[in-house]
């Protein structure tokens, strides 16, 4: 293939991969912006529940007491997951629903880890941040929506790679960072598009690639259930669900004895995606900046509070867990959040200038690719 036709092919790939995904990418960038600050916006909207400052010297409340308090608060609902936020170590949150497999109608009960008192119930599945979250994750369309956005993310990756290839012919006669302001809006727009696109290359590639991985999260968890969980719970295959449940506190103790060098991450209650109908899935984690994001499941028999199995997460779930902070930008404090927001805005500018370059040139005379490159014009 000649150099000219190769460039023409890359230009075609860049144009169409960008055009198809740009509107969705603009939506993802716009909805992602408030999601970067979801904690801060939650505080501002008054959704954050504070831990009261009390003089308390005693031991932490038992897990069973907290579970009982949550069940009393939401009678008729079953617990799904129990976890705590990193910035609120004195709280536990129990999410609940009508059934363990429900995909809507969730409630959250926030409890004081010292006294097992219910501190409140933050709003779930409502409000501005919920709309932003759903638009960003699945367009209110569940798994098909997630996979569709994953496909758009893949097209963005194609657009970025083809954009890098096309950067070279357009920059042969320009200095790095040169923006031709005096030569009309069109060339200025092209230079801004090329310049901002190339300087944010790493960030855009990382956020797009991790977004694609995240879009597969539901399917990866389902595959883990099929691949690993089914092996771990094979002896329970034809048994009826337990008619009584052992102490949650005792189950957590067994998990901690099994993994003494790890900390309790979260608990999946029987019947949920991360456990089985017969088990508490107790997920332990490390304490270094990286390993605190990686979990190790410990399956505890929910009837007898004895260990059933514990094994490392497979590579695809490790990849998913590592990709999450790299997509959310929530792993470096407020400084990183602001950087994420600025880079997000720069990406919006790149998308918008790209869209405008295409829109403005639709009815213009289009010379051959060689002339376009010579003139460093945008196509």
């Amino acid at each position, binding site marked *: 293939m000649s150099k000219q036709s190769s460039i023409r092919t890359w230009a075609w790939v860049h144009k169409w991969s960008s055009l198809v995904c740009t509107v969705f990418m603009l939506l993802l960038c716009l909805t992602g912006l408030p999601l970067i600050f979801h904690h801060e916006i939650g505080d501002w909207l008054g959704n954050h529940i504070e831990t009261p400052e009390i003089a308390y010297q005693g031991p932490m409340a038992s897990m069973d007491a907290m579970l009982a308090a949550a069940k009393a608060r939401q009678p008729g609902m079953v617990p799904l997951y129990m976890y705590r936020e990193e910035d609120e170590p004195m709280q536990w949150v129990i999410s609940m629903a009508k059934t363990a497999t429900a995909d809507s109608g969730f409630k959250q009960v926030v409890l004081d880890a010292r006294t097992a008192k219910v501190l409140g119930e933050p709003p779930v599945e409502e409000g501005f941040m919920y709309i932003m979250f759903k638009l960003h994750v699945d367009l209110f369309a569940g798994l098909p929506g997630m996979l569709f956005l994953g496909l758009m993310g893949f097209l963005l990756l194609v657009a970025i790679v083809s954009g890098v290839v096309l950067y070279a012919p357009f920059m042969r*006669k320009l200095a790095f960072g040169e*923006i031709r302001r005096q030569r009309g809006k069109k060339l200025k727009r092209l230079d801004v598009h090329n310049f901002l696109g190339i300087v944010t290359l790493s960030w855009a590639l*990382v956020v797009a690639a991790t977004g694609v991985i995240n879009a597969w999260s539901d399917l990866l968890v389902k595959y883990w259930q099929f691949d690993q969980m089914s092996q771990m719970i094979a002896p329970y295959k034809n048994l009826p669900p337990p008619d009584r449940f052992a102490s949650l506190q005792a189950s957590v103790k067994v998990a901690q004895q099994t993994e003494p060098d790890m900390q309790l991450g979260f608990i999946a209650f029987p019947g949920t995606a991360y456990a089985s109908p017969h088990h508490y899935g107790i997920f332990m984690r490390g304490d270094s900046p990286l390993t605190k994001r990686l979990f190790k499941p410990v399956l505890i028999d929910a009837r007898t509070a004895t260990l059933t199995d514990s094994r490392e997460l497979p590579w695809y779930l490790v990849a998913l867990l590592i990709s999450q902070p*790299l997509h959310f930008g929530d792993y*470096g404090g407020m400084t990183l959040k602001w*950087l994420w927001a600025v880079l997000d805005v*720069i990406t919006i500018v790149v998308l918008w200038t790209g869209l405008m370059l295409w829109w403005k040139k639709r009815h213009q005379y289009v010379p051959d690719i060689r002339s376009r490159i010579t003139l460093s014009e945008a196509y």
Partner: protein
Amino acid sequence: MVTHLFMPNKKLPQIFFWPMLIALVSLAGLIFALVYDDAREYLANAAIALPVLVALFFYWVQPLFSRR
């Protein structure tokens, strides 16, 4: 007058030297910020901020100098 038409063509390493350097430094920053929780995290944040600083410099700061 279109002055750049008379400039010699740059070679690929010349075109991609600064973009690749910025990309590698910011990628290292993204990874280091994930792995370290100490003073090295500040360095990582600075590396992630590099594309923003470069963009600010070439878009706003450099034109001011050129005008003077």
